């Protein structure tokens, strides 16, 4: 039989119509309950593996062996990830298992991914699965902390995980005591491990704490961890939390020995600035008794937290109170070595006084 050009035209013209009808009449099944065909499942995973590997090629993981990275990551995992993936302390919840594909048991799968690939998945999520992107795309530091936690997960027992994660999120309508316990999971002085990514809040000004909570709540200060944590809190409790931490006396973070040359460089910058490089003195705003309560005190905060915040200010990704753009202008000419020196200086300041 000869196929004439008329038949070809008829088929080509008819295909879109047929396709439209198939979709419009609802003949395509999108139920998660019925699952994928095996070939679809294989195909989607093939695409995902290749895509993640390719995207991770240009990333390089920072050192992830600092125990200071783990508590905040564990607390966030408990708040945001365990609801689908389960945790070392809880098997996967039924909701996670009913997803398509089911949320994997991470202890079993992280071994098949490199740190960079895990970073890629956690930061950007995975399309056509339930895996969401990290809530803030500018906080790579937080994503790396989570990758550090994932690396530890296969060897982590329930007690260790519970100890890292601290109190669970208190949820709507909880008592203020339960909320403080949740915040304390990361921010209490006795919960700090190593060089923590988390600031100790005690002794900070009430106005600054309140404005920062509000900034996280309003999306004005990017953080996947804190925006998620604050979303579990009734905003009427913000002022109570701020007052609670402002009332406590300041406790400095633990510090490790630092090269005195670095500390001197930090001190010079902090106290006098460097007018030739357009760097104002930090002390002009931070730490004087009569300064603005919206300017946080810096002495005794962990050097990792200080450095990460300075880097965010330099890159223009740190929001915060209504004064945050002033800080961004003040630090725009800082070099990497300046940031490390300043962070070390303020972390060591309580020791030196």
């Amino acid at each position, binding site marked *: 039989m000869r196929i004439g050009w008329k038949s070809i035209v008829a088929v080509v013209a008819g295909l879109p119509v047929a396709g439209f009808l198939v979709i419009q009449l609802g003949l395509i099944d999108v139920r998660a309950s019925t699952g994928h065909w095996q070939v679809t499942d294989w195909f989607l995973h093939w695409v995902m593996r290749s895509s993640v590997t390719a995207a991770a090629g240009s990333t390089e993981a920072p050192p992830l062996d600092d125990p200071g990275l783990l508590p905040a990551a564990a607390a966030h995992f408990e708040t945001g990830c365990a609801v689908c993936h389960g945790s070392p302390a809880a098997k996967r919840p039924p909701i996670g298992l009913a997803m398509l594909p089911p949320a994997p048991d991470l202890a079993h799968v992280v071994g098949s991914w490199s740190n960079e690939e895990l970073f890629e998945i956690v930061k950007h999520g995975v399309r056509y699965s339930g895996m969401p992107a990290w809530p803030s795309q500018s906080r790579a530091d937080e994503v790396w902390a989570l990758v550090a936690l994932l690396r530890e997960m296969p060897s982590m027992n329930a007690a260790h995980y519970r100890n890292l994660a601290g109190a669970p999120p208190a949820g709507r309508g909880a008592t203020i005591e339960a909320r403080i316990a949740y915040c304390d999971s990361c921010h209490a002085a006795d919960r700090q491990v190593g060089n923590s990514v988390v600031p100790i809040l005690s002794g900070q000004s009430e106005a600054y704490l309140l404005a920062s909570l509000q900034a996280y709540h309003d999306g004005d200060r990017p953080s996947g961890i804190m925006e998620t944590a604050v979303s579990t809190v009734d905003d009427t409790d913000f002022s109570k939390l701020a007052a609670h931490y402002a009332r406590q006396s300041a406790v400095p973070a633990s510090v490790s020995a630092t090269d005195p040359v670095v500390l001197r460089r930090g001190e010079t910058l902090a106290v006098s600035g460097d007018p030739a490089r357009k760097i*104002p003195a930090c002390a002009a705003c931070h730490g004087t008794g009569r300064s603005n309560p919206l300017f946080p005190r810096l002495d005794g905060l962990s050097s990792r937290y200080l450095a990460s915040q300075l880097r965010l200010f330099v890159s223009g990704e740190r929001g915060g109170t209504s004064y945050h753009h002033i800080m961004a202008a003040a630090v725009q000419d800082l070099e990497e070595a300046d940031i490390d020196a300043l962070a070390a200086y303020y972390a060591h300041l309580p020791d030196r006084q």
Partner: protein
Amino acid sequence: MPPTENRPRAKPHLPLFILPFCLAGCSGSQSALSPAGEEASSIYLLLIVTTCGAAVIWCLVTALLVYAGRSRRHVYSAGAGQKLILWGGAILPTSILCLLLGYALWLMPATRPWLTNNETSGFRIEATGEQYWWRFAYRDAENGISFDTANELRLPVGERIRFALRASDVIHSFWIPSLGGKMDMIPGRTNFFSLEATRPGIYRAPCAEFCGTSHALMAFTVVVMEKEPFREWMERQTNLLRPRETEGARLFARHGCAACHTIRGTQARGRIGPDLTDIGARQTIAAGTLANTAENIARFIRAPHAVKPGVKMPAFPMIPQAELTALAAYLKGLQ
């Protein structure tokens, strides 16, 4: 025949009407045609000499042209023609140009180094161009004078003042049309220069080298004073004491202004932005951009970029209106 006489005839005469208005721009506070200093006078004289000389030469050449076109009776011999070309076409113009070149070179500061000596001792003003403002440092080690100010230069009349010119970011150019200049301010280099004002008054000096978005909004004021008031002013600047705990000073520190700005005699010692010690007494604010009123000071603090695009100072829209008004009044009161 069309009624041509009804046509407007204003067009050919328009330049004549415009000319007087143009001439009005030749006087005033920013004009090289109305000199008030030694350097500007000598440049003005050079302008007059070259313009008049050029006019005379042009008249002579035109007359010769007319003469050559008319006269046919007399024919030069070959020798006489060559002589005329040699003297009139080569030697005379070369001599005139050499004289002019010598005169113009003589006016350049580098050929008279005793006027611009770069000794580090003695009184001098260090002027630094910044995007988009001017830092002035008055220095005299022997007499214990050392203070900074910004965007307004005070000079004594009848005294040669030495300048050291620098730039902190990009090339700017220092030019006070009524007094003298200009000389470039180049990052990483110090240029020396001197000026002598001959007439007291207030002059304007724009940045004369394109330096960025707000180049056109970068100017400073020059106040030329009699010698005695100038000495008194310098003395006052050197031994300045201000009450420390005023509400204005408190607000200035509270909002972080002191991290970048100095107000001598107070706790504010920042050296990033302009010195504000006597900002209330200056002719303008924001480096020649706005009239110096409390309202304009407040307006600039609230949104500096709206006044001056590309300015380094961040905006302060978060300062409550009442505090902003008090802060502006405090700054306006710094005389």
